[in-house]
């Protein structure tokens, strides 16, 4: 059987390349049109081409999201755009509109994947979209692991399942909160995330919610790493990570962890200790997590989270540009304020994160500096442990 695919989001070319270096088998990105994340820095056609060239060189695939609910004006130049994507080397288009799904199959050789915005929660839905020509269906996040297994056993179409990241509290694609409350169209990429706002609960016009505990419509983020063995055994085609708006550090952390977990399961047919992986994921995650609907309904403690957004507790400080094997000097590009004489953690593709003690840090001219304060400044330090280009430091 084909090995399960690890599918990473990417908001720009840099993140696309990191996702692939850190073990993603495929990435999904948004183009300039028809993409639901209008706030994510979306790719131009030439960016997409560069991304595809890079991905294909590394045996990875690129999917482009065209998953908005199109209004009449969005129908313009649809075929041209799809052909541009095909010419750029895109492997698949992720769409919710049946028009796009059919067009992709009729006018291009790309695959068509049905977006989770279509809320497919049963095998009949999978069969319906297969009849329109879809090659893959992304299941709705409301499916339990048992539902997923049953759907997989009853269908022949590739299935993709979300395993990590933020979730819509509402049924995806069927939420009008943002549209009504802010006039920003959630189904065309303008989601204002009104579900995450705080609300008073009123009964017959009188406030009854607890002053010390706000109510919101949002849900905790998803973390389903412990279901990987079952998803692999069920024959699911792809494991998807949410987060086209998330940082490079987030992507490297999450993809690195899932990559190693998946590989361990294929190698040993079991996972020795999920807690190690969960612990690693928590260094990238910035909200509380839950299993979503994987085990069915949620209990209050699994679902309701404290609404203050917690930042990841491991500050990501830089990217390794070079390691000189003769001098043992590491050159990095600064990403967050950082000083010397401390212990750093190194995140390296296909490896468990490990710690290194460093002493003084230098600027690019060799002067000792107390801390690296300027964004993207070049910083050097000595390390006997050899680091590698593209390692991340935190």
């Amino acid at each position, binding site marked *: 059987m084909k090995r399960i695919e690890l599918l990473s989001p990417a908001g720009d070319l840099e993140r696309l390349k990191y996702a692939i270096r850190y073990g993603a088998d495929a990435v999904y990105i948004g183009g300039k049109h028809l993409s639901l994340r209008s706030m994510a820095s979306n790719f131009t056609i030439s960016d997409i081409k560069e991304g595809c060239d890079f991905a294909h060189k590394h045996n990875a695939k690129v999917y482009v999201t065209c998953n908005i609910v199109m209004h009449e004006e969005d129908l313009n130049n649809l075929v041209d755009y799809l052909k541009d994507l095909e010419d750029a080397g895109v492997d698949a288009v992720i769409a919710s509109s049946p028009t796009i799904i059919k067009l992709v199959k009729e006018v291009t050789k790309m695959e068509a994947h049905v977006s989770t915005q279509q809320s497919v929660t049963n095998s009949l839905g999978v069969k319906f979209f297969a009849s329109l020509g879809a090659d893959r269906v992304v299941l709705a996040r409301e499916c339990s692991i048992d539902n997923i297994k049953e759907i997989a056993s009853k269908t022949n179409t590739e299935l993709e399942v979300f395993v990590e990241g933020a979730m819509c509290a509402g049924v995806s694609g069927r939420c009008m909160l943002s549209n009504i409350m802010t006039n920003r169209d959630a189904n065309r990429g303008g989601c204002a995330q009104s579900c995450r706002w705080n609300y008073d609960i009123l009964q017959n016009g009188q406030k009854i*919610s607890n002053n010390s505990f706000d109510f919101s419509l949002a849900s905790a983020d998803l973390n389903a790493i412990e279901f990987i063995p079952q998803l692999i055994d069920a024959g699911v085609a792809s494991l998807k990570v949410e987060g086209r708006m998330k940082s490079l550090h987030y992507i490297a952390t999450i993809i690195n962890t899932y990559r190693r977990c998946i590989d361990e399961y294929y190698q040993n047919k079991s996972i020795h200790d999920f807690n190690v992986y969960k612990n690693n994921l928590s260094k990238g995650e910035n909200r509380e997590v839950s299993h979503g609907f994987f085990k069915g309904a949620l209990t209050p403690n699994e679902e309701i989270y404290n609404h203050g957004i917690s930042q990841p507790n491991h500050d990501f400080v830089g990217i390794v540009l070079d390691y000189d094997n003769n001098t043992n000097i590491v050159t990095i590009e600064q990403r967050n304020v950082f000083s010397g004489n401390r212990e750093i953690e190194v995140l390296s593709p296909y490896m468990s994160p490990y710690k290194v003690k460093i002493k003084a840090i230098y600027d690019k001219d060799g002067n000792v500096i107390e801390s690296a304060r300027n964004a993207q400044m070049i910083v050097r330090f000595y390390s006997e442990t050899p680091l590698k280009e593209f390692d991340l430091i935190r």
Partner: protein
Amino acid sequence: MDKIITTYKPIGSVKVNASKSYGHRYLIASLLCDENININNLPNSEDIFATKEAINIIKSKQESITINVNQSGSTLRMLLPIACYTHKHVKFAGDKSIFVRPLNVYENLLNKQGIKFIKNDDSFEVFDSLKIVDYEIDGDVSSQFISGLLFLLAFAKSKNSIKINKSIVSNNYIDMTLKVLNDVGYTFKKDHNSYKLVDISPIKQKSFDIELDYSNASNFIVLNALKENVKVNDLPSDSLQGDKVILDIVKSKKPFNVDIVNSIDLGPILFVYASCLNGVSHISGISRLQDKESNRLLAMTNELSKAGVDIKVQGDGVTINGKSSYEGDYVFETYNDHRVAMALTIFSTMIKGRSTIKNIECVNKSYPNFFKDFDNLNSNKMTLSIYKQSTLEECSSLIDVAYLNVPKYSYVYENDLDIDKAIKYCLNHNIEPILTITRVYLENEVEDIKSFINKYKDYKFAISDLGLLEIFKESGLINNVIYDSPIMMCNSSDLGLYASLGVNAVSMSNEIPISDIINAYRITSSNIFYQVFGRKLMFYSRRKLLSLYKEHSSSSFSLDNLSLREEKRNYEIPIYENEYGLYCFRHYHISLLKEIHNLRFIKYIFFESLTLTDEIIKEVLTIYRNAIDKQISIEQGLESISKLDLEIDDGFAYSDTIHQKEKIVQ
């Protein structure tokens, strides 16, 4: 079953079934072919089924066969010669109405050849094989006798001839037979008054598309002439069908004089058409109307007279002095005759009042989907969401369609609606029920919803889970489905695509401007379901967030009458939770009364009754109904709506949402 017709406002297009006459002929022609031929779009009618069965029996090698022609005179008259030629003993059985109609041509023929036969009131039995000779018959009989003999000569590959004395009636039907024979390689030549087989060539094509039926189409062609806005699709312009003449008759929309000797099946509908035109029309050549499935002359004069139509029969013609409108409540008998039933249905749309068409099953003979197509053309069907029996009963006189929220399967709200009781009430009150099962179903719920659908498969359903379409596809009942997931339906292309799957109607979004809805209809001509009034769902979660919050914050409020308020916004959002999750609604009721005349093309105009009292709903429906029927002006309607003391808004009717990054003000 009876059909009740009150107000009827057709708009849209209809595609009638294929020609029964051609259907019979291609089926019979298949007997002349060495290889199997494909006959596409065979009309689904009882008569065609009778011919199909008869063909199978004739193909059998037995000496003695029995053929049940049921009510199909065509089957009997066009197949008798071949059947009696190939078998030593043939018994035709069927409905009594068939055997009172003339068979004298064959009786004479059998007598001439000394073949014994017995004619009963429900059978015709022949006791020896028919011989091929030169035939000679009179032309003033049903053309089906001539067609039957032409098929026989082709079947026997015989050079014998058929000589016709006197002039032929229904010449075009013979031309249709000759065309079909020619299609399968048999060319006849007409010399003076004789037909002779002159050439047999190999068959050129193996697959035949049957052209659509002008006789059935004539009902909708007349409906369009009387009420406009009806398009009858895909009729062949170069057809040999005699009833094609209906197009010429309705062209001027004025009273007419016409001889229907060659288009006798147009009789009933032309009686109706003449009755509804201001002035005097004259129809001649009607005597054979008396020999059809019923005595159509008697049937039509009886029934039209009930409504006071000025109608006089004289010799072979009828004079009708018509008028454009009739009033009153009438019960029309249909005489077990499909053409009478269809014609009187069209007549009923011109009557102000309540008309009842009795025993409408008779249309199965030629056009089983007639009433479905007829209903489908009706537009602006007032459709009300029903959560309790009282709303249904209070509003029954104001609505055409009841959108019955099936407990447990509909999208929102718990309710205790007794579905069987509600359906029964609807059927008794001329309301069409739609069973609303608009939830999204998890895999473990699929079997349950499947059995519910199968239990109620005779009715229409509103669905939003596309997977359910697979269930309807399987049962061939996809036309019963209204795809009701409006949030997802925002452009003409997706609308057209879903419509092309064969669903009955598709819900359009209330989050796009009305101009886009109008445009989408112009492009696709699809049946649209569209909400014009009431609450709109704006958030649905499978998470029971309220219960979870209660538990987590140790609160003890009940889940009734709750709403949410965001700090910076001065409105309350109604919120509700049940065992399937959490629902929030827009804080206002939408009302699109202002646009109602521009929404004439909307098939189902939908009113959401959620959170409204029966009294308020009734008032709203009355205002809309009066505005649609132009009993009140839009301004008057708007004023009445404003007096209801509801928060009303036109939502996105005039402004689209914004979505592009650069347009979003942070």
